[in-house]
Protein backbone atom coordinates (compact mmCIF):
# COMPACT_ATOMS: atom_id res chain seq x y z
CA UNK A 1 0.00 0.00 0.00
CA UNK A 2 1.46 3.36 -1.03
CA UNK A 3 0.65 6.59 0.80
CA UNK A 4 0.16 9.51 -1.60
CA UNK A 5 0.02 13.19 -0.66
CA UNK A 6 -2.17 15.67 -2.51
CA UNK A 7 -0.34 18.97 -3.14
CA UNK A 8 -1.89 22.44 -3.22
CA UNK A 9 -2.84 22.02 -6.91
CA UNK A 10 -4.58 18.71 -6.26
CA UNK A 11 -1.73 16.71 -7.82
CA UNK A 12 -0.26 13.48 -6.50
CA UNK A 13 3.10 11.90 -7.34
CA UNK A 14 3.33 8.19 -8.07
CA UNK A 15 6.53 6.65 -6.61
CA UNK A 16 9.11 5.68 -9.29
CA UNK A 17 9.13 1.98 -8.35
CA UNK A 18 5.36 1.82 -8.88
CA UNK A 19 5.73 3.56 -12.26
CA UNK A 20 8.34 0.97 -13.27
CA UNK A 21 6.39 -1.98 -11.92
CA UNK A 22 3.23 -0.99 -13.76
CA UNK A 23 5.02 0.00 -16.94
CA UNK A 24 3.61 3.51 -16.73
CA UNK A 25 5.11 6.18 -18.97
CA UNK A 26 4.42 9.92 -19.43
CA UNK A 27 1.09 10.36 -21.20
CA UNK A 28 -0.41 7.09 -19.99
CA UNK A 29 -3.94 7.40 -18.70
CA UNK A 30 -5.20 6.30 -15.31
CA UNK A 31 -8.81 6.14 -14.26
CA UNK A 32 -9.88 7.53 -10.90
CA UNK A 33 -12.89 5.69 -9.55
CA UNK A 34 -14.91 6.94 -6.59
CA UNK A 35 -15.84 3.68 -4.90
CA UNK A 36 -17.58 2.95 -1.61
CA UNK A 37 -14.21 2.10 -0.06
CA UNK A 38 -12.62 5.35 -1.23
CA UNK A 39 -10.75 6.39 -4.34
CA UNK A 40 -9.29 3.74 -6.62
CA UNK A 41 -6.67 4.50 -9.24
CA UNK A 42 -6.99 2.10 -12.14
CA UNK A 43 -4.57 1.53 -14.97
CA UNK A 44 -6.41 1.83 -18.26
CA UNK A 45 -3.58 1.94 -20.79
CA UNK A 46 -2.69 -0.98 -23.05
CA UNK A 47 0.86 -2.35 -23.18
CA UNK A 48 2.65 -2.21 -26.51
CA UNK A 49 2.52 -5.92 -27.23
CA UNK A 50 -1.22 -6.23 -26.58
CA UNK A 51 -1.89 -3.07 -28.59
CA UNK A 52 0.20 -4.40 -31.50
CA UNK A 53 -1.75 -7.66 -31.45
CA UNK A 54 -5.07 -5.86 -31.73
CA UNK A 55 -3.87 -3.30 -34.29
CA UNK A 56 -2.51 -6.02 -36.57
CA UNK A 57 -5.70 -8.11 -36.67
CA UNK A 58 -7.78 -7.86 -39.83
CA UNK A 59 -11.44 -6.89 -39.48
CA UNK A 60 -12.36 -10.53 -40.00
CA UNK A 61 -9.93 -11.71 -37.31
CA UNK A 62 -11.17 -9.03 -34.91
CA UNK A 63 -14.67 -10.40 -35.38
CA UNK A 64 -13.45 -13.92 -34.65
CA UNK A 65 -11.49 -12.67 -31.64
CA UNK A 66 -14.56 -10.93 -30.24
CA UNK A 67 -16.69 -14.05 -30.70
CA UNK A 68 -14.06 -16.14 -28.91
CA UNK A 69 -13.63 -13.48 -26.23
CA UNK A 70 -17.38 -13.45 -25.49
CA UNK A 71 -17.43 -17.25 -25.30
CA UNK A 72 -14.40 -17.27 -23.00
CA UNK A 73 -15.48 -14.39 -20.77
CA UNK A 74 -18.96 -15.81 -20.23
CA UNK A 75 -17.69 -19.27 -19.34
CA UNK A 76 -17.44 -20.17 -15.67
CA UNK A 77 -14.19 -20.03 -13.72
CA UNK A 78 -14.21 -23.85 -13.59
CA UNK A 79 -14.57 -24.05 -17.36
CA UNK A 80 -11.66 -21.66 -17.83
CA UNK A 81 -9.55 -23.62 -15.38
CA UNK A 82 -10.35 -26.78 -17.34
CA UNK A 83 -9.10 -25.16 -20.55
CA UNK A 84 -5.80 -24.25 -18.89
CA UNK A 85 -5.40 -27.63 -17.22
CA UNK A 86 -5.75 -29.66 -20.40
CA UNK A 87 -3.04 -32.18 -21.20
CA UNK A 88 -1.34 -31.96 -17.81
CA UNK A 89 2.11 -33.54 -17.89
CA UNK A 90 2.84 -36.62 -15.82
CA UNK A 91 5.81 -36.79 -13.49
CA UNK A 92 5.77 -40.56 -13.39
CA UNK A 93 8.71 -42.68 -14.49
CA UNK A 94 6.47 -44.50 -17.00
CA UNK A 95 6.01 -41.24 -18.92
CA UNK A 96 9.72 -40.67 -19.46
CA UNK A 97 9.67 -42.23 -22.92
CA UNK A 98 9.09 -38.84 -24.55
CA UNK A 99 12.22 -37.28 -23.02
CA UNK A 100 14.91 -36.55 -25.55
CA UNK A 101 18.68 -36.64 -25.39
CA UNK A 102 20.60 -33.44 -25.91
CA UNK A 103 21.41 -32.72 -29.55
CA UNK A 104 24.99 -33.74 -30.41
CA UNK A 105 27.42 -30.79 -30.36
Amino acid at each position, binding site marked *: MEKLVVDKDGKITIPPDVLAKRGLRPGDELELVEAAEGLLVYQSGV*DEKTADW*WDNLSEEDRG*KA*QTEARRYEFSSENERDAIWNEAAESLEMEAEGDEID*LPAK
Partner: protein
Amino acid sequence: MTSPPSSVLFDKGVIRRVYERRVRLALGESPTLLQVEAANAYARLSAITTNLYITEQTANILLRRTPSFAAPLLIDLQPLKKGRYLRRWARRLRDFAFSPEDAIVLAYGSFGVNLTVPGVGAEAVVTADLKMAARYQTNFSVIELRFKSMINDLGSGYSNHSLPQVLTTSDVLTKF
Protein backbone atom coordinates in the same frame (compact mmCIF):
# COMPACT_ATOMS: atom_id res chain seq x y z
CA MET B 1 18.39 -2.32 -13.03
CA THR B 2 20.11 -5.67 -13.62
CA SER B 3 20.91 -7.39 -16.91
CA PRO B 4 17.90 -9.17 -18.36
CA PRO B 5 18.11 -12.94 -18.83
CA SER B 6 18.85 -14.10 -22.37
CA SER B 7 16.21 -16.81 -22.14
CA VAL B 8 13.02 -17.02 -20.10
CA LEU B 9 10.37 -19.66 -19.63
CA PHE B 10 6.88 -18.33 -18.92
CA ASP B 11 4.75 -20.52 -16.73
CA LYS B 12 1.22 -21.28 -17.83
CA GLY B 13 -0.34 -18.83 -15.38
CA VAL B 14 1.47 -15.89 -16.95
CA ILE B 15 0.42 -16.87 -20.47
CA ARG B 16 -3.15 -17.35 -19.26
CA ARG B 17 -3.23 -13.80 -17.94
CA VAL B 18 -1.67 -12.40 -21.11
CA TYR B 19 -4.37 -14.25 -23.06
CA GLU B 20 -7.11 -12.98 -20.77
CA ARG B 21 -5.77 -9.42 -21.06
CA ARG B 22 -6.35 -9.74 -24.79
CA VAL B 23 -9.84 -11.17 -24.22
CA ARG B 24 -10.69 -8.08 -22.18
CA LEU B 25 -9.31 -5.77 -24.86
CA ALA B 26 -11.33 -7.54 -27.58
CA LEU B 27 -14.46 -6.98 -25.48
CA GLY B 28 -13.57 -3.38 -24.64
CA GLU B 29 -13.55 -4.24 -20.95
CA SER B 30 -11.08 -3.21 -18.24
CA PRO B 31 -8.48 -5.84 -17.37
CA THR B 32 -7.69 -6.99 -13.85
CA LEU B 33 -4.51 -5.70 -12.26
CA LEU B 34 -2.95 -9.17 -12.45
CA GLN B 35 -3.71 -9.36 -16.16
CA VAL B 36 -2.11 -5.94 -16.67
CA GLU B 37 0.96 -6.97 -14.68
CA ALA B 38 1.41 -10.17 -16.70
CA ALA B 39 0.87 -8.41 -20.04
CA ASN B 40 3.34 -5.66 -19.10
CA ALA B 41 5.96 -8.20 -18.00
CA TYR B 42 5.42 -10.16 -21.23
CA ALA B 43 5.81 -6.99 -23.32
CA ARG B 44 8.93 -5.95 -21.41
CA LEU B 45 10.64 -9.33 -21.83
CA SER B 46 9.60 -9.58 -25.49
CA ALA B 47 11.52 -6.36 -26.08
CA ILE B 48 14.72 -7.30 -24.26
CA THR B 49 15.03 -11.10 -24.29
CA THR B 50 16.06 -13.26 -27.25
CA ASN B 51 14.52 -16.59 -26.34
CA LEU B 52 10.99 -16.74 -24.93
CA TYR B 53 9.88 -20.23 -24.01
CA ILE B 54 6.79 -22.09 -22.87
CA THR B 55 6.27 -25.70 -21.89
CA GLU B 56 4.82 -28.26 -24.28
CA GLN B 57 1.58 -28.28 -22.28
CA THR B 58 1.13 -24.51 -22.64
CA ALA B 59 1.84 -24.78 -26.37
CA ASN B 60 -0.74 -27.57 -26.72
CA ILE B 61 -3.35 -25.49 -24.89
CA LEU B 62 -2.70 -22.49 -27.15
CA LEU B 63 -2.88 -24.68 -30.25
CA ARG B 64 -6.47 -25.54 -29.30
CA ARG B 65 -7.52 -21.90 -28.91
CA THR B 66 -8.81 -19.56 -31.63
CA PRO B 67 -5.91 -18.67 -33.94
CA SER B 68 -6.58 -14.92 -33.77
CA PHE B 69 -5.53 -15.12 -30.09
CA ALA B 70 -3.12 -18.01 -30.09
CA ALA B 71 -1.17 -17.65 -33.35
CA PRO B 72 0.66 -14.40 -32.44
CA LEU B 73 1.62 -15.86 -29.06
CA LEU B 74 2.88 -19.04 -30.69
CA ILE B 75 5.04 -16.94 -33.02
CA ASP B 76 6.66 -15.19 -30.04
CA LEU B 77 7.03 -18.26 -27.86
CA GLN B 78 8.93 -21.46 -28.55
CA PRO B 79 7.96 -24.66 -26.75
CA LEU B 80 10.83 -26.39 -24.98
CA LYS B 81 11.03 -30.16 -25.35
CA LYS B 82 11.47 -32.38 -22.35
CA GLY B 83 15.13 -33.36 -22.08
CA ARG B 84 16.35 -36.60 -20.52
CA TYR B 85 16.02 -36.61 -16.70
CA LEU B 86 13.54 -33.70 -16.62
CA ARG B 87 10.94 -35.75 -14.77
CA ARG B 88 13.50 -37.27 -12.45
CA TRP B 89 14.50 -33.76 -11.34
CA ALA B 90 10.85 -32.71 -11.11
CA ARG B 91 10.14 -35.62 -8.76
CA ARG B 92 13.02 -34.51 -6.54
CA LEU B 93 11.64 -30.96 -6.49
CA ARG B 94 8.39 -32.39 -5.13
CA ASP B 95 10.32 -33.04 -1.89
CA PHE B 96 10.22 -29.27 -1.37
CA ALA B 97 6.42 -29.28 -1.48
CA PHE B 98 6.11 -27.89 -4.99
CA SER B 99 2.94 -28.98 -6.77
CA PRO B 100 3.47 -31.43 -9.67
CA GLU B 101 2.79 -28.59 -12.10
CA ASP B 102 5.27 -26.22 -10.42
CA ALA B 103 7.90 -28.96 -10.18
CA ILE B 104 7.68 -29.72 -13.87
CA VAL B 105 7.95 -26.10 -14.99
CA LEU B 106 10.98 -25.60 -12.74
CA ALA B 107 12.50 -28.77 -14.17
CA TYR B 108 11.95 -27.43 -17.70
CA GLY B 109 14.10 -24.50 -16.57
CA SER B 110 17.04 -26.90 -16.16
CA PHE B 111 16.27 -29.78 -18.53
CA GLY B 112 14.08 -28.23 -21.24
CA VAL B 113 15.59 -28.43 -24.71
CA ASN B 114 15.30 -25.99 -27.58
CA LEU B 115 16.43 -27.96 -30.61
CA THR B 116 17.31 -24.82 -32.57
CA VAL B 117 19.87 -23.27 -30.24
CA PRO B 118 22.79 -24.65 -28.22
CA GLY B 119 22.37 -24.92 -24.49
CA VAL B 120 19.67 -26.26 -22.30
CA GLY B 121 17.00 -24.89 -19.99
CA ALA B 122 16.23 -21.21 -19.44
CA GLU B 123 18.00 -18.56 -17.41
CA ALA B 124 14.77 -17.58 -15.69
CA VAL B 125 11.31 -18.99 -15.07
CA VAL B 126 8.70 -16.23 -14.97
CA THR B 127 5.65 -16.90 -12.86
CA ALA B 128 2.62 -15.12 -11.48
CA ASP B 129 2.61 -17.53 -8.55
CA LEU B 130 4.09 -15.68 -5.59
CA LYS B 131 4.00 -18.75 -3.33
CA MET B 132 5.97 -20.84 -5.80
CA ALA B 133 8.58 -18.09 -6.20
CA ALA B 134 8.89 -17.65 -2.44
CA ARG B 135 9.23 -21.41 -1.86
CA TYR B 136 11.99 -21.58 -4.46
CA GLN B 137 13.90 -18.67 -2.89
CA THR B 138 13.53 -20.01 0.62
CA ASN B 139 14.79 -23.48 -0.31
CA PHE B 140 17.27 -22.44 -2.97
CA SER B 141 20.49 -23.44 -1.19
CA VAL B 142 19.19 -26.95 -0.46
CA ILE B 143 17.69 -27.28 -3.95
CA GLU B 144 21.07 -26.30 -5.38
CA LEU B 145 22.85 -28.99 -3.36
CA ARG B 146 20.39 -31.62 -4.54
CA PHE B 147 20.73 -30.41 -8.12
CA LYS B 148 24.54 -30.50 -8.09
CA SER B 149 24.49 -33.96 -6.59
CA MET B 150 22.16 -35.23 -9.32
CA ILE B 151 24.18 -33.54 -12.09
CA ASN B 152 27.41 -35.08 -10.77
CA ASP B 153 25.80 -38.51 -10.83
CA LEU B 154 24.68 -38.01 -14.45
CA GLY B 155 28.21 -37.51 -15.73
CA SER B 156 30.10 -34.95 -17.79
CA GLY B 157 27.46 -34.60 -20.52
CA TYR B 158 25.25 -32.78 -18.03
CA SER B 159 27.81 -30.41 -16.50
CA ASN B 160 26.34 -27.41 -18.35
CA HIS B 161 22.91 -27.82 -16.78
CA SER B 162 22.00 -25.20 -14.21
CA LEU B 163 19.15 -24.01 -12.07
CA PRO B 164 17.04 -21.13 -13.37
CA GLN B 165 16.27 -18.07 -11.33
CA VAL B 166 12.57 -17.62 -10.61
CA LEU B 167 11.09 -14.19 -11.27
CA THR B 168 7.58 -13.01 -10.57
CA THR B 169 5.90 -10.74 -13.11
CA SER B 170 6.32 -7.98 -10.56
CA ASP B 171 10.10 -8.71 -10.37
CA VAL B 172 10.33 -8.38 -14.15
CA LEU B 173 8.75 -4.93 -14.09
CA THR B 174 10.88 -3.63 -11.23
CA LYS B 175 14.24 -5.16 -12.22
CA PHE B 176 14.43 -4.72 -15.99
